[in-house]
Structures are given as C-alpha cells and as structure tokens.
C-alpha cells in the first residue's frame, strides 16, 4: 500500500509550483468510515488527504463538471486539474481521452498503484462486522487486511472484503500518469469474468426471472447515470420523458425529442433504460462499479456492463481503457468479426 506521506508530498509540490488549479483527492468524511472527495487548492491543505482501502470513488467523474465550468467561464483558468487515480480510474481517463472529451494537458495525473490490494466492498464489510463501529482499515506488509474496531484488531485475507471488481481487475496500477506512487505489480486474475458465471450458468428462464426481479426494483433515480464517468452527455436519451408536447411544439422538436420510454418506473420501461445504458457503455465501461455502489436498491448493474465487456473481449478482442489512440469499440470493425448469427 502506498505511503500517505508520499502522496501528500506530491500533491503539495504541484500546488506550491502552481502547476495545477487544484488537486482532487480523498478526505475523511463526517459519514464514519467511508471517505469523501476533496478539492485542495492550497498547499497547506494537503494534510486533509487520506489514502486507505476505503478510497472507492472514481474521481474522474469531476472532469466532466470541470469541462462544463470551463466552457461557461469567460476567462477560464487554463492550468490542469490534479487528480489522484487508481488503476481503474486511470482507465476511465484513457477512455475520456480516447473520446476527446478532455485533452492530456487538462489533467495532471497522480497515479497510485493498488499493488496487490484494492479497495474494500462496503456491503461485504457491513455483513461481516454488522453494527460494530470500524475505526480503521489498513493493509499489513503481507497484504492482509487489518480491521480495527473498538473490540480490537481483526486480520483476514484481503480477498474476503475486497470489492469483487478488484478481485477481477486486469490492471491494478495506473496505465497513464504523470507521477506514479507504488509499484507496477501486475496481478493476472485467473478468470476476469468469474462473477458473471453465476448468472450465465442459469437457464434462460432463470436468467429472465433474475433480471425481472432486479430491474422491477429500479425507481429510476438515475444515480447510476449521475455517478458514471462515462455518462457525460449534455442531454441523455431518457431525458425526453420530461418533454411536454403542446399545441405549439414544432414537428422538428417532436422529431428531435422522441419519447423512447415512459416515465413510470415499471419493468418494461426500466428495462429500456438499463439496456440502453449498458449498450452505450459497451467498450467504454472500465468496471469501476460506482453505479452499483450508489444504487439505493442494490441492483447489480455491474453485471450488465460486465457482460458486454466480456462480449467485447471474446468477440472482438477489445479491452476498454488501455490505449487512448485506439478507435472505440463501436466505431471500428475488423473483417473477421463474427457473423455466424447472421443468415
């Protein structure tokens, strides 16, 4: 695990040189164990920074807001934003660069390698420790997790409370960075799509029953969309559900704002929303699992995106978020793409 002091040193160095506008990182939150994102613009504030296995958030999401701010301001600050990224977050950055939403000069990347560890899963923790208040979580030298509660320390293998995505991670170090903290230790998971198997092994009917139950729960709060670093469209296809057609609405407006689905959160409409979100994330989703974390109804949204990640890998040999110069999945093709399903 990377030393927090090194991280503070790097952050205060770039802030002192005024190389960046501010640094986005993690701070202790008022919400107990889990941290909150923090924007630091004075070198003395780097003391707020923390770094531990609970730093789950994907901070690349803030670059979308940053871009909006820049567009609106008359004399924008042209300096880059300092960003603390993990391996998965750096791959999100690569996708944003690939899509030219941001340019490389817009961001100063402080890469932090997860080394052999990763981040914890809140739900697994809650299950394991019930209502005991957790004070600290850290890794020891052998990459075991040590959880401190008021009853004392509990030591366990990292795999017990690491997030599922970390156990399936293909690059546990940043693939793109300006400074890198920690070692580039590559850990190849045995099967990066292991968690999918439990759904894929079900029969057609069981699969439908599973998704029917899950997607019926959705209340369409769109938290998954709000937190996703890839969902940056100014206007989402599902936003047209709020478009009111009146006598004054022109034909052009009606043609532009097609109501693809209804507002009501029922299965058939939820299905359209989740399906279209999954398709729009095909070849772009880097499996940060933020959508699943923020879902108030615990819908396993990650399994939809993961399935397409697997399809992209198996059918088209495409891995999202490794090369910013590579064309994106649906904007490219190969002559040997499979067509055995076509008559």
């Amino acid at each position, binding site marked *: 695990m990377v030393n927090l002091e090194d991280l503070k040193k790097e952050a205060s160095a770039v802030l002192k040189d005024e190389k960046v506008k501010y640094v986005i990182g993690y701070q202790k939150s008022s919400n107990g164990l889990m941290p909150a994102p923090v924007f630091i613009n004075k070198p003395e504030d780097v003391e707020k920074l923390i770094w531990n296995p609970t730093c789950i958030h994907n901070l690349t999401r803030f670059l979308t807001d940053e871009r909006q701010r820049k567009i609106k301001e008359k004399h924008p600050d042209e300096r880059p934003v300092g960003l603390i990224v993990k391996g998965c977050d750096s791959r999100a950055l690569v996708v944003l660069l690939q899509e030219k939403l941001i340019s490389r000069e817009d961001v100063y990347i402080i890469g932090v390698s997860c080394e052999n560890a990763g981040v914890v899963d809140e739900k697994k923790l809650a299950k394991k420790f019930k209502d005991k208040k957790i004070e600290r979580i850290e890794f020891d030298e052998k990459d075991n997790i040590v959880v401190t509660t008021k009853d004392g320390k509990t030591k366990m293998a990292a795999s017990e409370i690491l997030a599922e995505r970390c156990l399936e991670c293909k690059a546990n170090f940043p693939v793109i960075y300006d400074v890198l903290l920690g070692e580039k230790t590559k850990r190849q998971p045995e099967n990066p799509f292991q968690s999918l198997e439990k759904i894929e092994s079900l029969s057609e009917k069981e699969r439908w029953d599973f998704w029917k139950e899950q997607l019926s729960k959705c209340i369409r709060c769109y938290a998954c969309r709000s937190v996703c670093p890839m969902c940056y469209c100014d206007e989402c296809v599902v936003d047209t559900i709020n478009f009111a057609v009146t006598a004054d609405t022109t034909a052009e407006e009606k043609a532009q704002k097609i109501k693809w689905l*209804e507002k009501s959160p029922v299965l058939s409409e939820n299905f359209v929303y989740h399906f279209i979100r999954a398709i729009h994330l095909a070849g772009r989703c880097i499996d940060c699992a933020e959508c699943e974390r923020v879902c108030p109804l615990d819908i396993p949204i990650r399994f939809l995106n993961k*399935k397409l990640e697997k*399809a992209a890998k198996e*059918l088209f040999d495409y891995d999202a978020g490794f090369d910013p110069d590579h064309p994106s999945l*649906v904007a490219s093709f190969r002559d040997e793409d499979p067509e055995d399903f*076509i*008559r």
Partner: protein
Amino acid sequence: MMAEEFEPKIVAFLCKWCSSAGSDLAGVSRMQYPPNVVPIQVMCSGSVSPLYILSAFNKGADGVLVSGCHPGDCHYIKGNYYARRRIALVKQLLEYIGLEPQRFQMSWVSAAEGTKYTEIIKDFVQELKPLGPQTKLRRAQ
C-alpha cells in the same frame, strides 16, 4: 370451432439499398410469404440504433429482424460492418437477460435475393409460432 392460431408480429428494419429492394423484388415477382412482417425502411443497417430494436419489443413486437447488404456491398462502404458489431452486442445482451434468442435476428439480403427474403420470413414465423406472444419486454397496455 378451431382455436385461432397465434400469428406473430415481426418488425423488420430493411436497408434501403439492398434488403428493402429485395423485399420489393419478392413482392413484384408475386412470391408468397407470410404477411406477419411490418417492414420499416432505413437508410442503412448501420443506422439502426439499439433503441429502435428495444422500442419495437417495448411496443409489442414478437420478433425483430435487421437486414442489410452483404459485407462489401454496403452503399455507404462500411455501414453494415458497424451494424454487424453493434447487433452482435445487442443480441448477446438480450440473450443474457433471458429473451429467447430466436426473437431477434439479423440477415444479409441483397436486391436480387427476393427468394432468400421470403425464406427468411417463412423460417422466422415458423420459429416464433411455438414461442407464443412476447410479453417479457412489452409495455403493459
């Protein structure tokens, strides 16, 4: 009195340059094929958004067909290659979610293949009949 047999409703997205002309050929040659298809002409199979397909299922289609030019014959040079990739992803996801794989199909039909078009429709209808109406993705009326 015999119970009425289930007649599936198929929405077919046909590209303007090949498949639509192919279906036209079937028509003007007076070839017989089931009347279960609602053809929708699109400019290219590559212009078929996954939303079109979902929307068709959402509004009660029992089956959806996307048909374009053979690889290499696309009027826009490479539209059907993009379609092939995108449709493969849509198909994977629909099957993953538990929709019967027979309900969503893709085909290459050129402007000269009127017979092939009628064969595809005949087979499609035959495959859909035992499945019954599609209720999984359908919006409640």
